[in-house]
């Protein structure tokens, strides 16, 4: 079915016709709907992977039951995670988990345990996402799986219920924009800095309703783990997907293009309370910091924690009066950091190591920062009250910049520490 090409067609009319190229989104969504899909069309697609979290699945189960759901036809395509309330801290959140347990048992779908990691990161790490896949998840950062060349997008709880019931999802085929990453990353500048720069340039809603294709020499040079950071933060631009294409079709119609010269980049810090508030770290050196958070789906790969440890070692450890909280986002990352001693050494510096999962990223798991905390974090969002404390001020930066700040009790240029 392709209904309705009436909305958001804008200038894309000229892209109709089999002779012209396709964006990756048009290609993947068309293949999963069995039609020639073009930007603006509404298509119903069969999903390869359906993800749910403890933030969204309890409500989806209510919808599923209200829809008259009696079976999940594709249980092997479903993965549910207990990542946000890890561990649960209240009777109601324990009830949410119990609800998910009975649902998973009844319908034969996989439910990760508490400490089992963040839904889409675990999906990536366990090889469940391959290029060309359609991944839908009831978590806005499902877009992270776009790093693999998949079309991955966030859906709501009603969508999740319908996907559990039918294996399918309705989607509007988005227009696409290209982000061309030119040049080479200088020493001391990482994928998080590139992501903060792209978010700053595009703006909080700059990619709304659109898919991003990341291309160019600096994009090609990024390893998969680093690509995940850019795909992840596509959500902070309002994008529907953030894809590193296996092959980008130059004949496709792109609504917009942004070029970033990576060679000229500095480490960046996003100031409170918007991820798009990025400034070069050199502009904010000296800003007091008393709480540092390492982890999340944005800054949660094993090398991120190793980078941070390197900065801590080089900078002489965590400054007095600074709290550092470390949350591994998946069991695989935790195991790697245990095996090479990174976690033990971070703890020896005085860092608090929490249960695996989202940790304090969105205020759903302890510890919650204290009032007026001046935070620097490897996360992706710094909205007011994001971490459960409205008076806190959250800065976003790379693991190296965060750890360098921990050594000084204020923001410093990480290139002068490591």
């Amino acid at each position, binding site marked *: 079915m392709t209904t309705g090409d009436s909305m*958001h067609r804008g200038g894309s009319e000229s892209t109709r016709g089999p002779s012209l190229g396709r964006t990756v989104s048009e290609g993947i969504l068309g293949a999963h709907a069995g039609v020639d899909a073009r930007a603006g069309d*509404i298509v119903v697609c069969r999903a390869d992977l359906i993800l749910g979290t403890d*933030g969204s699945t*309890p409500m989806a189960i209510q919808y599923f039951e209200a*829809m008259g759901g009696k079976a999940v036809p594709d249980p092997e395509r479903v993965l549910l995670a207990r990542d946000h309330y890890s561990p649960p801290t209240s009777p109601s959140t324990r009830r949410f988990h119990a609800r998910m347990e009975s649902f998973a048992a009844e319908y034969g779908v996989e439910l990760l345990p508490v400490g089992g990691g963040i839904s889409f990161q675990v999906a990536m790490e366990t090889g469940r996402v391959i290029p060309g896949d359609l991944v839908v998840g009831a978590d806005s950062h499902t877009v992270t799986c776009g790093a693999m060349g998949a079309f991955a997008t966030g859906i709501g709880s*009603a*969508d999740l219920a319908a996907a559990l019931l*039918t294996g*399918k999802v309705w989607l509007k085929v988005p227009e696409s924009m290209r982000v061309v990453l030119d040049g080479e990353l200088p020493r001391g500048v990482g994928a998080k800095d590139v992501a903060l720069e792209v978010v700053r340039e595009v703006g909080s809603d700059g990619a709304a309703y659109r898919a991003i294709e990341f291309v160019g020499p600096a994009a090609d040079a990024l390893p998969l783990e680093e690509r995940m950071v850019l795909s992840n933060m596509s959500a902070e631009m309002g994008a529907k997907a953030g894809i590193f294409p296996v092959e980008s079709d130059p004949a496709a119609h792109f609504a917009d293009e942004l070029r970033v010269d990576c060679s000229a980049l500095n480490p960046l810090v996003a100031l409170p309370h918007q991820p798009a508030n990025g400034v070069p770290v050199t502009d904010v050196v000296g800003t007091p910091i008393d709480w540092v958070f390492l982890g999340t789906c944005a800054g949660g790969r094993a090398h991120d924690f190793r980078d941070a440890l390197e900065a801590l070692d080089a900078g002489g450890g965590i400054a007095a009066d600074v709290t550092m909280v470390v949350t591994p986002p998946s069991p695989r990352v935790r195991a790697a950091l245990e095996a090479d001693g990174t976690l033990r050494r971070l703890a020896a510096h005085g860092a608090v190591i929490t249960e695996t999962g989202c940790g304090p990223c969105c205020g759903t798991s302890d510890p919650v920062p204290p009032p007026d905390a001046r935070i620097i974090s490897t996360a992706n969002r710094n*909205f007011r009250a994001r971490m459960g404390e409205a008076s806190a001020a959250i800065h976003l930066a790379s693991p190296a910049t965060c750890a360098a700040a921990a050594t000084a009790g204020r923001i410093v240029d990480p290139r002068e520490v490591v």
Partner: protein
Amino acid sequence: MTSEIRGRARRLGERVNTDYIISSSRKKETLDPHVLKRWLLEEVHPDFATSVEPNDILVADEAFGCGSAMEVAVTVVLAAGIKAVVAKSFSRTYFRNAINNGLIPVECDTSDIGEGDLIALRLGEGGVVVLNEATGSKIQARSLPPFTLEILQAGGLVPYMRTHGGYPEEAT
């Protein structure tokens, strides 16, 4: 299908995020929108919850429903008796969750609409028109794709699935 909705405009500004619609700290204890509606828009409009009346229409500027994708930010609006939101633009997730729950999202220039204006929304295959009875102006809104109209007409994805048992067959 053509249908009309009339109601009083309740004016909000730009970038009303889902946490302003309903604070996520309120949803840790319950997901029931009929309980949560007591705190509807408490951050931006402290007396909103006590002054809202059935058939009121929310009117906002850019990026309505940005921020977290929590679906209670849609169900709590419906629980207060509101059937439509008119805004200059919506976040993708709010737009989608609105359709899936039967809350009508209308995208148009809202500069002309003031607090308390009586407005009428006409929805049909030919498009969506917003009439401001207070000023006499007629605003053409972005039309909704037919499939989303079908979901809205059914009252959301739950009644749609109950009636149809699934998505359209030819889509596979």
